[in-house]
Every structure is written in C-alpha cells, then in structure tokens.
C-alpha cells in the first residue's frame, strides 16, 4: 500500500508548495464534478477547502491510513461533502431552527464522523459475497423487487425479498461487529 502520509503531514505543516501541488493535481476534477452536479465555482472552492481541512483535523487526531491513493480518497471526500451539502438544503426545509444554531466547527466535526460512517458501511459492503453485493446495490438504488427478479433471473419476487433480507442481515452483522460502529454511536 502506498504511503500517503506525506500529503497529510504537508497539510499539518501548512506547506504552501505541497498544498499548491495538491490543488493542481486534484482541484480541476472536483470542480468538474461539482459543476456537473448543480454546483458553481464558489461551491467547488468551498468544498475543496473543507475537504483539505477535514483530512488535516482527522489526521491530527488519529493518524488514520488512506487505503487508496490520496487523489482517489480526496475526491471521495469532496464528493461526499458535496452530497452532504445538497442534502443539507433538503434537511433545512424541515429542520431550520436546529441547523441555524450550529457553529461551522461543530458542523465540520460532524461531517468527519459521517464520512467515517460512510467508509464503514461501504467497506463492509465490499466484504459480503458478490451476489449479495450486487443484489443490495440494486436494492439501495431503489430498483424494485420485480425488476431485480427479472435482472438476476430469480423465480419470484418473494425469493428476491428473502435474498435481500439475508444479505442485509449479513451486512448489518459485519457493520455491528466492527469496533468503528460502536465509536460512531451518538451520545
């Protein structure tokens, strides 16, 4: 596995030269993604800065290891932060009072925990059988039981439902067994 700690150390050292190199290599892809997903230039700049800060704060606290390339990981964090922003506006409609009271630091801290939950669930999904993974990906993509039955050639919708149930149970068992899950339980 490639050691990506030098990028994280560069952030903590506030190494402008290295941070500029991170921008040059990664920012255009992130900007393109945000433009394609209802965002503008200001959104892209904000998300990229938030992502870098998120990595620095998390590394400062727990020296975590990036299991993919730094570039792929940073892109995932940016994508998730943008997904979070888009959903925040939906949430705001129903929960304005609560969201307006929280500080930026509090919100950024929560975003790290949510990113960790996202990693735990997605890594657990990778651990189940290929068939289970496929059926759950279709299920969570909101493909109906009938369509899954046709696509994967099951005999009945009931068989699909049973299979989804078993695969979900397996996934939940893996998630609950992981020590990260207990650390993520809300106070």
């Amino acid at each position, binding site marked *: 596995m490639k050691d990506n700690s030098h990028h994280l150390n560069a952030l903590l050292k506030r190494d402008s030269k290295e*941070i500029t190199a991170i921008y040059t290599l990664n920012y255009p892809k992130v900007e393109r993604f945000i433009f394609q997903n209802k965002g503008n230039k200001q959104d892209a700049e904000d998300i990229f800065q938030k992502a*870098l800060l998120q990595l620095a*704060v998390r590394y400062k606290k727990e020296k975590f290891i990036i299991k993919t390339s730094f570039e792929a990981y940073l892109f995932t964090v940016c994508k998730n932060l943008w997904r*979070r922003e888009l959903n925040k506006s939906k949430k705001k409609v129903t929960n304005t009072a609560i969201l307006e009271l929280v500080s930026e630091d509090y919100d950024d801290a929560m975003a790290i925990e949510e990113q960790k939950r996202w990693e735990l669930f*997605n890594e657990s999904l990778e651990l189940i059988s290929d068939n289970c993974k496929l059926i759950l990906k279709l299920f969570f993509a909101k493909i109906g039981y009938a369509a899954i039955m046709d696509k994967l050639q099951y005999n009945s919708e009931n068989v699909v439902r049973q299979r989804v149930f078993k695969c*979900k149970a397996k996934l939940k068992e893996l998630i609950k067994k992981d020590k990260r899950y207990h650390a993520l339980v*809300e106070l």
Partner: protein
Amino acid sequence: MNLEDDILIEKFIDKTLSKEELEVFHKRMNADKDFEKKVLLEQQLWEVLSDDDWSFMSKSTETSQAYEEIFKSDEIKELRTTIKDVNASYQKSKSNVWIKWVSFASAAAIAFIISLNVLNTASPNELYEVYSTDKNLPSYVSREDGNENELIKAQLLFENKEYEQSLALFLNELKNSDSPDAGLYLYTGIAQTELNDFEEAEKTFNALLKSDLLDAQKGAWFKALLYLKMDEPEKSKGVLEEIIKQKWYNAEKAAKLLKEL
C-alpha cells in the same frame, strides 16, 4: 430481526405506513430500544448506500467533540488561512492562463485572416443553420437553487425559439448572478445570435472565453457559429483553427466545418 419487522421498517422508511400503523410504530420505538436501534441502522443503510442521500449525525459523539476542539485550535485556524491563500493564488493563476489565451487567440485569428486569400464556395448562413441545430446545452430543469423557476422558464422559451422573451430572462439572470455558469452565457449569446444582435452576442461569448469557468472554451465554438451567421467566414475560420489546435469542445466538428467553408 425477522422478515415481518424488516417489511414493517421498510414501509416506515418508504413512508407508506398508514396513520394508524405509524402511531403503533412510534409507540413501539419508544418502548423498545432494540427495535429503535434496528430502525436507526436500517435508515442509515438507506442514507449511506443510496446515491442521492446522505446520513447525517443527529447528535455529537465523543470523537466529534474532540474534532470540534481541533477545528477551534490556532493551528487549524492558521491552516485554514493558508489553504484560503493557496486557493486564491491557484484560482488567480488559472484565470491568467485564460486571459493569455484570449490575447493569443485574437492575434492568431487576425494573422490568419490577413494571410488568407480565400474564395468562399459555401454559404456561411447555410452552414450556420446546419451546425447550430445540435447545441448540446446544459439543462436547468433539475436545478435546486432559488432561481430555478426563472431559469427553467428561460430555457423552455429558448427551446420554443421564443428568443426575445428568453433573452430578457437570461440577461436578467446574468446581471444578478454573482457567479454565472457557462450555460447562462451560452443561452444568452445564442439567443442574441438568433436575434441578429451580433455585437452583443460577440461580447457575451468573449466574456465567457475570458471567464475561468470550466466550459469557457465552449464560447469559441458558438463564436465561430456567430461569425457564420454574420457572413464573416474568415473570422469563423480563425476561431475554428484555434479550436482544432487547442483540441477544445467540438474540435472534430470544427475540422469538418472548416473543410466545408
């Protein structure tokens, strides 16, 4: 968990429980902490694994409180400033590249026009009609910002070839937007082209080209089409040459069009 509960929770998440069923469901959640935990995990699974959703934390954790303290520290405040500074100089250097290109492209286009001695064999206006049919413009229909109604209305008017009304709306959006996207410039410039408001159309496409937007280069293609409509094939050729050279948006089409001019 049994299948029956699984179906029940699924209905709760899908919001398909009846009012009475929902009442019973909430009562059970309040009385049975294990059941509540199951519902919460199922909800989180949906939020994390569906592409269009996000799983928010509703309460802090010990770790999130520790992160919050780090965010508040002087060290991270200083890092925030450093990142902001790097961002500002990076964005500035990016936009300088565009300004340099626009100056270069203008000079190259003028040199190209002067050096050419061409006999036109095709009607530029005819070519405009052919090449302007496939515009491939972004859609505002799914936007979620506050201007969505105006932008959708403008886009629909544009698609119905009601260019005057459409232009009025797009110009208004362009004027009032702090960070207009490339689509706004394109719709505006094309509507101006269609209305034979050539000088303004040229200004609009130049503004897009000078911007640091990712799709700024699209302005070159529509500027080339504008020159066709203006019956200025030499100017159009200059822009097309540059599109091909820089491998910009529609470079292949530009090569084809250039041959036909």
